[in-house]
C-alpha cells in the first residue's frame, strides 16, 4: 500500500440548534493514497459537499480527525463563474493566491499564471478578460488553472461539471485526468453522476444520509454493488444505446 495523503477518521458535522439537529455528516472515515482519485457519490443532501468543505477547512468539524499529509490543497466549485470575482480579471485572480502565499516577485507570479493557463489550454489572451466574458467551460478551466498555481497535492472537485454541457464536461474530465496522470495530483471527485465518477476514479465511496454506505474499487463496485442504495443509484443512470443491453445482463 502506498502512502496516504489524506486520512479522515470519524468525521462528523451536525447543523442546527440544540432543539432540532441534523447530522449532515455522520462519523465517516476514509483514506486517499498519493496520486489516487477517490470518487464520492450520493444524492443532494447526502453530505458529500459538507465533507469536502470540512477537508478544505471551510467548515469546522464537530468531531473527528482530518490528517492531511500534503502541503497545499485546493478546491474547485460547481459554479465556475460565481467562483471568480466580477471585478478582477482572470490574470489577477490567478495571481492573487501566490501574492499572499509566497515572496516571489510580481513578474514571476504573472509568468507562472500564464504557464498555468497553458496547462489548461486557455488561450493567453484571455488573461485580461473578466468572468462575464468567459463561457462556463472556459471559466472552469481558469478555476483549475488558479488551483494549480500553488502546486497542490490534492484537488477537491465538488460537482465541477454539473453546470456544464456534456461536451464541455468531457473536456474538463479529460483535463483533470491529464493532471492526475502527469502531475501525480490526488483527486477527491464529488458528483451525483456515478457514470461520470466511474471514468476518473480509482475507488468510489457512496454516501447516503451522511454516512458512507459502501466503498470499493470503481468497477468492482459498479459490477457488484452490495448495498441497496448503491444498486438504486446505478439503476437510475439512464444508459444510452448499446450500453443498455450490457447493463441489463448484469
Amino acid at each position, binding site marked *: 500500500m502506498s502512502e496516504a495523503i489524506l486520512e479522515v477518521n470519524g468525521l462528523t458535522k451536525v447543523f442546527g440548534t440544540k432543539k432540532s439537529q441534523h447530522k449532515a455528516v455522520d462519523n465517516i472515515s476514509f483514506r486517499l493514497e498519493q496520486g489516487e482519485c477517490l470518487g464520492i457519490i450520493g444524492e443532494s443532501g447526502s453530505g458529500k459537499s459538507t465533507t469536502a468543505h470540512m477537508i478544505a477547512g471551510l467548515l469546522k468539524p464537530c468531531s473527528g480527525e482530518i490528517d492531511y499529509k500534503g502541503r497545499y490543497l485546493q478546491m474547485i466549485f460547481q459554479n465556475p463563474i460565481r467562483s471568480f470575482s466580477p471585478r478582477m480579471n482572470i490574470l489577477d485572480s490567478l495571481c492573487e493566491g501566490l501574492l499572499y502565499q509566497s515572496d516571489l516577485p510580481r513578474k514571476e507570479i504573472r509568468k507562472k499564471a500564464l504557464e498555468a493557463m497553458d496547462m489548461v489550454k486557455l488561450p493567453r489572451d484571455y488573461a485580461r478578460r473578466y468572468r462575464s466574458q468567459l463561457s462556463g467551460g472556459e471559466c472552469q478551466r481558469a478555476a483549475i488553472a488558479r488551483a494549480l498555481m500553488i502546486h497542490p497535492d490534492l484537488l477537491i472537485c465538488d460537482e465541477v461539471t454539473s453546470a456544464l454541457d456534456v461536451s464541455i464536461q*468531457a473536456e474538463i474530465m*479529460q483535463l483533470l485526468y491529464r493532471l492526475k496522470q502527469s502531475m501525480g495530483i490526488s483527486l477527491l471527485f464529488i458528483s451525483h453522476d456515478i457514470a461520470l465518477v466511474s471514468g476518473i476514479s480509482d475507488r468510489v465511496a457512496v454516501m447516503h444520509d451522511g454516512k458512507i454506505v459502501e466503498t470499493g474499487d470503481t468497477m468492482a463496485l459498479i459490477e457488484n454493488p452490495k448495498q441497496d442504495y448503491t444498486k438504486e443509484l446505478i439503476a437510475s443512470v439512464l444508459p444510452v444505446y448499446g*450500453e443498455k443491453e450490457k*447493463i441489463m445482463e448484469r
Partner: protein
Amino acid sequence: MLELQNISIAYGEKEVVRNVSLRAEKGEIVGIVGESGSGKSTLIRGIIGLLDYPGKIIEGKILLNGRNIAPYPAEKMREIRGKEIAMIFQHADLSLDPLWTIGKSFYESISMHKKISKQEAMACAAERLKLLSLKNPEKVLNLYPHQLSGGMCQRTAIAIAMANDPELLLADEPTSALDMTVQNQVIENMMSIREQRGTTILIVTHNMGVVEKMADKVGVMYRGRLVEWGSKDEVLHDPKHAYTQSLIRAIPKMDGTLPQAPERCIYE
C-alpha cells in the same frame, strides 16, 4: 399535430434559430438535444410565444393542428397558451409564484380559460396531482413552492401545466436541476401523462439518457440548425452527422472510461 416549417428566430440582428423544420404527431414525444447556445430553448419559446425581447420569429410557419400560430399577436397567444400549449421549465421552484399557494396557481391557470368556481378548480387540481401520483394532493394545494422539494415542485408544475388538458406540452430541461433518482420519477410522470391523455410532448434537454428513455423522435440542434432528425433508433444508434457522433461519445459511460471530448471545429 405540430409542424414547424422553416422556422428562423432572431434576436435583433442575430439569427439564433435557422431554418428549422420538424413534425410531431399526436401523442408523440419528441426530444431536442444540443449544447447551450444551440438555440433549442429559443425554438420552444418561439412556439409558445414567450421569446424575450427583442426575439422574433422572422420566417416560417408554426402549424398547430393546421393553424399557423407564428404571426399571432400577444393577446391571441394568451388564449392558446395554457389551454392548447403548456410549458414547464428547468427551475420549477422559480416558475411558480413564491407568494401563492399551489392551489392558487392552479386556480389562476384554470380560470384564465374558463369560468370556474374555486371549489371546482380545487377538485380539478387534486385530480391532476393524483395523475402524477403525488401523495396527499389536498395538502399540497395549501403549500407554498418553498415548502416542496425540487422533485415535488417540478411534478406540481407539470400538474399545473396539465390543468387545462393541453394537446401539446413543452418541456425546457425539466430534469436538469434534479437528482438522478428524482429525474427518473419525473420522466415516468411525463410518460404516464402521454399514456393517459395522449399529450404530445416536446422536450428540450442536453441529457441523451433522458431522450433515450422517453422520446420517439429526436432532433439534434447545433448552432441554430437542426443537423439531425429522425426516429430515436436512427439518431442514437446510427448517427449520421459528425456532431451527433461526437455528442454521443461525450456522454459518460459506466464502464470506467473517460468521456471523449469533441474536437473544436465547426461541423458543416
